């Protein structure tokens, strides 16, 4: 992992203003995502994971951002927090793509899957409808859909949650990003589908050779898939762990607590005796 980083975040802070009071939800976090690495950002809810992820392409709504987000593209390094709106729009999708937590809300209910995919493709590439459709269908097929054509013509409400999340992944890969930000992509889905989604992400990542920033509250899931884990708490990154021979070895007591936070460690309920 000695390669140069594709994304280098330095002292990134995200703050919101409420009644003239400044509230900092992400406090001077710094982290790096190496080429083709799978990096996990782990923390409990409210720790600032999602705000960190959104800030990477200035998607934070109404927030003030400071620090720098250095993106190493084909044409050198640039600070995403300082690029022009047009450059930013070009970066979104082609450099960094997102998969969000709630697949049910992430698709426009009045457009078919196909329309949304074609629209996304045409927003970034000058091409005709036929080519956009071909690429979309190929992308859906890669997302393990056995009948891409049927999905292409479907409206979001005709698909299940897991299918929608696969559509979102297909859509995220459609524009050929270099970094995929997956913000708790499996939290809204049940456990069997979670596995499918994780495997799909892994397969597509290998095929497209891209880096992934995976956000989750489940540190054990993270330790299965990640090359590197950053642990966040109260808006700060408190620990960085790289995968070693023995997997991930936590040093901070908070991280150790997270590892122990699974349900199997809850004492089983004592039986209530009925006379």
């Amino acid at each position: 992992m000695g390669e140069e980083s594709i994304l280098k975040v330095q002292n990134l802070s995200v703050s919101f203003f409420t009644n003239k009071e400044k509230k900092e939800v992400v406090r001077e976090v710094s982290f790096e995502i190496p080429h083709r690495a799978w990096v996990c950002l782990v923390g409990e809810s409210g720790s600032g994971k999602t705000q960190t992820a959104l800030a990477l392409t200035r998607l934070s709504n109404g927030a003030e951002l400071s620090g720098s987000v250095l993106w190493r593209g084909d044409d050198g390094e640039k600070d995403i927090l300082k690029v022009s709106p047009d450059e930013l729009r070009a970066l979104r999708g082609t450099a960094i793509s997102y998969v969000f937590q709630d697949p049910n809300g992430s698709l426009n209910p009045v457009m078919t899957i196909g329309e949304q995919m074609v629209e996304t493709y045409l927003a970034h590439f000058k091409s005709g409808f036929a080519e956009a459709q071909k690429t979309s269908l190929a992308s859906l097929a890669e997302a393990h859909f056995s009948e891409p054509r049927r999905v292409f013509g479907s409206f979001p409400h005709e698909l299940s949650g897991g299918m929608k999340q696969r559509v979102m992944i297909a859509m995220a890969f459609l524009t050929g990003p270099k970094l995929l930000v997956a913000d708790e992509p499996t939290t809204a889905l049940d456990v069997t589908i979670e596995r499918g989604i994780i495997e799909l992400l892994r397969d597509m990542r290998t095929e497209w050779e891209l880096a992934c920033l995976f956000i989750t509250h489940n540190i054990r899931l993270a330790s299965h898939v990640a090359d590197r884990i950053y642990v966040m708490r109260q808006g700060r990154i408190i620990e960085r762990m790289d995968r070693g021979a023995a997997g991930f070895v936590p040093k901070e007591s908070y991280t150790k607590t997270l590892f122990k936070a699974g349900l199997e460690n809850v004492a089983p309920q004592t039986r209530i005796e009925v006379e």
Partner: protein
Amino acid sequence: MRFAKAWLLLWLVLAAVSPLVFKELSSEMNIAQALSAPSMKHWLGTDSLGRDLFFRLLAGSSVSLGVSAGAVTLALLIGAWLGAMAGYFGGFREKMIQGAIDIFLCFPTFFLILGVIAVMGPSLWNLVWVLAVTSWMGVARLVRAEVLSLKESEFVLAAKALGAGDWRILWKHLIPNAAGPLRVSAVLALSGAILVEAGLSFLGIGVQPPTPSWGNLLMDGKAVLGAAWWVLFFPGMAVFMTVLSLNILGGSLARGRRIDT
């Protein structure tokens, strides 16, 4: 409900074909037969110049409905555009548009129309745009409210994250999602526009004779009410039934959407 739909569909078809088919028949005068009562020859009777009322009603429908539909379409375009801008961008633009809405709502609509028509002259086009300019505010408020809540939804964030610009998000994602309530308000606005058009023509500042419209048929009828009830009755019924049908249709669309209007 079914009757309302059938009635509207019937008039839609009649209004579309009547300029081609009934133009001659509707202006054919026959003084000898002036003010004859409804009969087999003249189904709805004739007016004071002996023109067949049935054909005049048909010809009038295309003018009345055409002017109203044009005005509502224009009002929808203005309202949806400004409302979406206000809701989506917020800030200064929203303040300006909100201010404009409040100002336009302050004018007594009917008298504003009277004034403008008096100055500009009562042509069909003037009628269309004046009606539109005085009725876009409701649409704008509706669209603004819809956009305000829709712009926070995940799919807008997702579209943004995939590189969609503001205009693309507005036209492709926000306004289509506001189409349901918009449709309801369009139908109700249409019934309002028909009434205003009829009122203006009745007062003689809307559609000008000899062009027939439901409003100036009413005006003709008023003059001869004592001698011939049918000249007033049938155009009145046409306006009444059409407006009633539109309101029923709008109400049922609104119930389908589970929103109150």
